[in-house]
């Protein structure tokens, strides 16, 4: 059997993290082919339902990536909203029987291609340790 390849849904804000992921590409940084990016205008646009639904449809992990706190958010404070939501969502995931580490929040700027690649690398590693999402088999 081939090794378990986790699937990550990465919600990236348009201004910093989506551009950061582009930067990784421009520099040809290589990282595991596990992440699928969904562009949202701001990390604060993240509705908790998006994350729950990603897990429901079989994601092994979810990344929420936005501009650095406290000052980089293109919309002033959306990243703080995202941070609060993710903290609460982690608690909810735990109650649903999912490891909270499956949901990760990162601040990745438009120039941090390396950080984007590293975060996906680390997440992939972590998810391999955790194994497939328990919701998948259910």
């Amino acid at each position, binding site marked *: 059997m081939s090794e378990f390849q986790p699937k990550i849904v990465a919600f990236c804000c348009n201004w910093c993290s989506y551009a950061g992921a582009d930067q990784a590409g421009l520099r040809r940084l290589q990282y595991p*082919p596990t992440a699928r990016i969904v562009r949202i205008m701001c990390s604060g646009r993240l*509705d908790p339902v*998006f994350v729950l639904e990603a897990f429901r449809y079989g994601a092994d992990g979810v990344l929420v990536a936005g501009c650095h706190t406290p000052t980089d958010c293109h919309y002033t404070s959306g990243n703080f909203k995202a941070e609060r939501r993710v903290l609460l969502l982690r608690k909810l995931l735990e109650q649903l029987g999912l490891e909270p580490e499956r949901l990760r929040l990162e601040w990745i700027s438009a120039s941090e291609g390396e950080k984007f690649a590293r975060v996906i690398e680390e997440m992939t590693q972590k998810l391999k340790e955790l194994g497939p999402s328990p919701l998948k088999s259910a």
Partner: protein
Amino acid sequence: MGVFLCKCGGNISDFVDLEAVKRAVEKIDGVVAVEVDEHWCSSPAGKRIKEVIKEKNLNRVVIAACTLNMHQPHFMEVLQEAGLNPYLLERVNAREQCSWVHKDSPKEATEKAIDLVRGGIARAKRLTELSPIVEKINKNVVVVGGGVAGIIASLELAYGGYRVFLVEKSPTIGGRMAKFSKVFPSLDCASCILTPRMAEVESHKNITLLTYSELQEVSGSAGNFKVKILKKPRYVDPALCTGCRDCTTVCPVKVPNEWNMGMDKRTAIYIPFPEAVPRVATVDEEHCLYLKHSKPGKPVCGKCVEVCKAKAINWNQKPEVLEVEAGAILLAVGSEVFDARRVPQLGYGLYKNVITSMEFERMINSDGPTGGKVVNPVTGETPKVVAFIQCVGSRDEKYNPYCCRIGCTATLKHAALLKEYVSKDIDIYVCYNDMRTVGKGFEEFYRRVRDMGVKFIRGLPSEVKQKPDGTLSFNVFDTTTETLYEVNADLVVLAIGLVPSPDIEKVAKLLKLSRGHDGFLLEAHEKLRPVETLTDGIFVAGSCLGPMDIHDATSEAMGAASKVMGFLSAGEIVKEPIVAKVNEDLCSGCRVCVSVCPFDAIKMEEKGEGKFVAKVDEVSCKGCGLCASSCPTAAITTQHFTDEQIRAQVRGILVGT
């Protein structure tokens, strides 16, 4: 729906099997055409997209190619020309976020591409027709920074008929260039070419010059910014001051003169240099005895007031905030020179006869601290042996990995000036990493300086020591002759590079702009949009983008000014319709959206019988979607990023459509 897969000349197709992607998505419900092309961004390919739209009667288009930060306006136009609403286009990033980052695993890259295209198709199905929001724009421009880039940009704009507010934080415009003696490679005098342009800035009817002023707050958006500018008190009425400098002859305070890199002293009331624009005195409130120590009824000092015939000194000036409306902002806030104290082994700050290239620049300038005489600061005599050390703080992982781009040519200039204007008998050594002389006429200039007898050693010393007699000595290994030399010099000049100034951080924070790893501002695209930022209406030029010489800063300033004029001359701005929209039937009037909106774009509107619903001001709304994700009744959403669209994309990625 039509799906267009781009090979990108192999950039994508070398690592992603597009035929496999095609097979995987062509059966998806609603997909009636899947085509693969070498470059969908090319003009014949655009024609092909239009043909397919018409032939197959498409009502949605998915293009899987590069990032949507490339070619998006072009593809939207293609749809428009085929009679399709441009917001029915969905882009899938198969290059930057797929093929380029998974070169070693083509199988998985292909699987990922399939998922991404499926997500795109699912989202595309839920896209709706939208119309851009058109707004009138204000034709004023705020230029921040009065160095050579800001000066040139302001003049270009002013002559183009646009009203310019030029904001400069120091008492005069001119920037670093005004401190230079000569410019490379022509060796003509820097102030002879700069000061006439400074005077033009002052007299041009379209330019409002705001020196000793800083950007304080910016609100609004492209086309209609509201800019608050803080005018610091200079305690001198510029309308009355004649620039006679009598005050500077009586002021008892002496502080290091930043204009001469601290090599001499200035008074607390001062005019930085004779050609300053405006030629108006400024009181440095940090050091002025009157401002620091006077108590009510008990003034201290005030000698300048006694001597000022124009009665220009005004102790009652207060900081003033000016509000300006502008359609565009052009940033030319410049850079700083590297602090050579950070490399203590080279002796700067320890030995007086180790100086920086900027200090040398002031020393050889006729209105500098020595009146243009190059002297050994220890002995006060003309040096016999001068050694230049290159790349101080540059091309070094410990300080700045990048090349300062000016150090080599600046040192060539300094060596040439020493030989031509001081004495051809001075022995000159240049210790370098690589001589980088890439500008027009620079290589010829290098050859000319070599012919003058300047000795070039390919190698950098690790330490500079002072001998008991005050001369400096270092060992350097020349990698071209494989010889270890001992150099003894009276004067060592460190070629310092350029670093981002704190102003860059400040404007980046104020305007929410991205900065690169090196701390300089990030352009929208390094090749194709070099003088724009990713934020509409904000343009950039000069060394706040990275180290550059005067020629490049001027070219960028002109480029940025012409971009600004192009932007403003349209008279209106077409804003993306990515804004919040309220379903009044679902709105419960709870006001959560009002509280989370960072732009004050949502107001409550009374609908009678005490019922209130949220109403979005489309002009102020920037489309972040904080309201949409906070609304408890899902009554508010963001157009083009609705819950349905985002959820469909997630589902499409994970389980097909």
